[in-house]
């Protein structure tokens, strides 16, 4: 067992993947000597060389476009997008090429490209450094989309993402990079498959569904709700595409009340998909409509206002109250 921060866990996960498979490459802006602006790739260039850990020119479309080419040649590129708000110059390569090429080739082509994106707010940053763009990618067929919420998952999920023959958009909750946990690096026996969700706190009265940075917030809310005599179940979705429907539906049917929480705007956010699917599958088991807590239908505000924009314990509990009001 080793205590690791979430960012270190990702680092160790990538290191392991690079040791296991010489085809694994790291590429992105400042990932080499600097080790990335969040130090997630710290030391990798030193140990694996400049041919495997590539500081690219400053162009995101170029990063993903050339990663596709490298993948066509048998490599497994792990691309770092420096911040969520800077993935958009690469949107064309991700959406029109990366997501669709395997299908166009009738399966002849596999594109094992991982696109790592530090996501979410809460770190007092300037514009474009606090976005939650997951719904753009879950809306695009052909991409697996996952989000880790804690160090152990970060460690196992990044390795599974790299091993996957599908393109994976991998969200990392940047405000949780420094959170620490004990990780068993000696075996993979404890790993949860990276396309499955997990109940991280069992409960009976209502289900909170979250992923990435909001899992911790929901766990705190569940603890606080206990004082009010409410038993909240918390699901860490982990994978947004594919969605672990059996897990979600079982919990929703059992508790009858569901609140979905994410940082991204509620309007057309991933929670809308969850709400619709849960309603379709569990309609007669629900005591209340599926409620959503998330960002407002506004651009991410300047950092002095982000505490109001981001869902917090109070906003989550407020939604829980409303769910009990039906």
């Amino acid at each position: 067992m080793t205590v690791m921060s979430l960012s270190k866990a990702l680092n160790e996960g990538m290191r392991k993947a690079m040791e296991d498979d010489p085809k694994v490459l790291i590429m992105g802006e400042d990932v080499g000597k600097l080790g990335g602006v969040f130090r997630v790739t710290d030391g990798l260039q030193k140990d694996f060389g400049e041919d495997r850990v590539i500081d690219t020119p400053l162009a995101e479309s170029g990063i993903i476009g050339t990663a596709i080419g490298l993948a066509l040649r048998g490599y497994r590129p792990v691309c770092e997008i420096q911040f969520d708000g800077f993935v958009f110059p690469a949107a064309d390569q991700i959406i029109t090429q990366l997501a669709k090429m395997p299908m166009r080739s009738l399966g002849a082509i596999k594109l094992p490209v991982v696109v790592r994106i530090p996501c979410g707010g809460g770190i007092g940053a300037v514009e474009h450094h606090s976005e939650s763009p997951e719904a753009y990618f879950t809306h695009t067929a052909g991409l697996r989309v996952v989000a880790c919420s804690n160090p152990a998952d970060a460690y196992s999920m990044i390795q599974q993402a790299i091993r996957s023959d599908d393109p994976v958009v991998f969200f990392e909750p940047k405000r949780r990079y420094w959170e620490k946990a004990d990780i068993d690096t000696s075996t993979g026996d404890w790993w949860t498959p990276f396309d499955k969700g997990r109940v991280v706190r069992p409960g009976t009265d209502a289900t909170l569904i979250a992923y990435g940075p909001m899992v911790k917030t929901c766990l705190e809310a569940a603890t606080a709700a206990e004082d009010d005599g409410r038993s909240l179940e918390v699901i860490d979705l982990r994978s947004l595409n594919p969605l672990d429907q059996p897990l979600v539906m079982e919990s929703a049917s059992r508790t009858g009340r569901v609140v979905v929480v994410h940082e991204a705007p509620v309007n057309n956010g991933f929670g809308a998909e969850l709400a619709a699917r849960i309603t379709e599958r569990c309609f007669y088991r629900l005591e209340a409509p599926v409620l959503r807590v998330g960002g407002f239908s506004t651009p991410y505000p300047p950092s002095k206002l982000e505490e109001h924009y981001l869902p917090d314990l109070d906003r989550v509990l407020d939604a829980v109250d409303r769910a009990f009001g039906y």
Partner: protein
Amino acid sequence: MTADASRGAQAPPELVQLLTPEGERVEHPDYDIDLTPEEVRSLYRDLALVRRVDLEAVALQRQGELGIWASLLGQEAAQIGSGRALTDADMAFPTYREHGVAWCRDVDPLKLLGLFRGVNHGGWDPKEHNFHLYTIVIGSQTLHAVGYAMGIQRDDATAATIAYFGDGATSQGDVNEAFIWASVFNAPIVFFCQNNQWAISEPLERQTRIPLYRRASGFGFPGVRVDGNDVFACLAVTRQALKNAREGQGPTLVEAYTYRMGAHTTTDDPTRYRVASELEAWKLKDPIERVKAYLFKNEHADQAFFDSIDAEADQLGADLRRRCLAMPDPRPLDIFDHVYSEPHPLIDEERAQFAAYLEGFES
């Protein structure tokens, strides 16, 4: 597998320079400038005051009053030289580091702090200053600048635009598209690239194998490399390029060869990726010291002048600090303002809901 381009403090031969690091006036076959002692003193004042604004901002960040700050240290001459070349009718499109240009466009430095303090995302009216909002997404603004220039063309106006960007930005698709648009439409624009040798931790060789100014020829317009630490040369070269643009001769790429003397931003740690000796070499080319030396040498200014500038800088710094600390925080409901120019029902609904939610805490 890495191309090696020469880089460093050694001035390459093609560099336009009118004032040496020692403060000697030198001639250049293509560019000249005739400045009165008064004008040189005024440039010195600009340089010294923007450096002071920058230092104060760094200090404010260190004390937790700003979230982050992108320092212009070392790039004062490139920004003041090019900024003072602009006429009122010209339009500037900055990155996030153009505090010196903002100064030339009469944008209150406090407005710049607002963005870095997290009070707003911009905060000044671009039309009022002909200085666009800061752009953080690398390279985007170069296309806006070209479009604006195409508008100037269609209005038959006598004006030009100037687009600021860094060496790293030259790799972005947007910047290369901007070059193509400007070239094809002969847009009245100056592309002003401050090559400060670094894009965060990546040295220039990660972006290019040839000197950046030479890229212009491939796009079909002239490129020139100017000593970015020489305010005279930056002024002369930018003035000429803007004049050419206004007179219908289309775009120019100006590569201001300079150095980012500080960290990329206050959250960056340059010791991880560059050697201290590089900074020492560039310190000898400081953009402000050479103007001071020139003024002294030619007896265009005495100690009393420099003392008075120092006093003015102290005053400016103290005043900026005071006003920064007094800056009101935005109110929670401001989140919903200005998202659309016309009324929007969902915004109204969410604003009302959030107002009610907040009231719940008061009762």
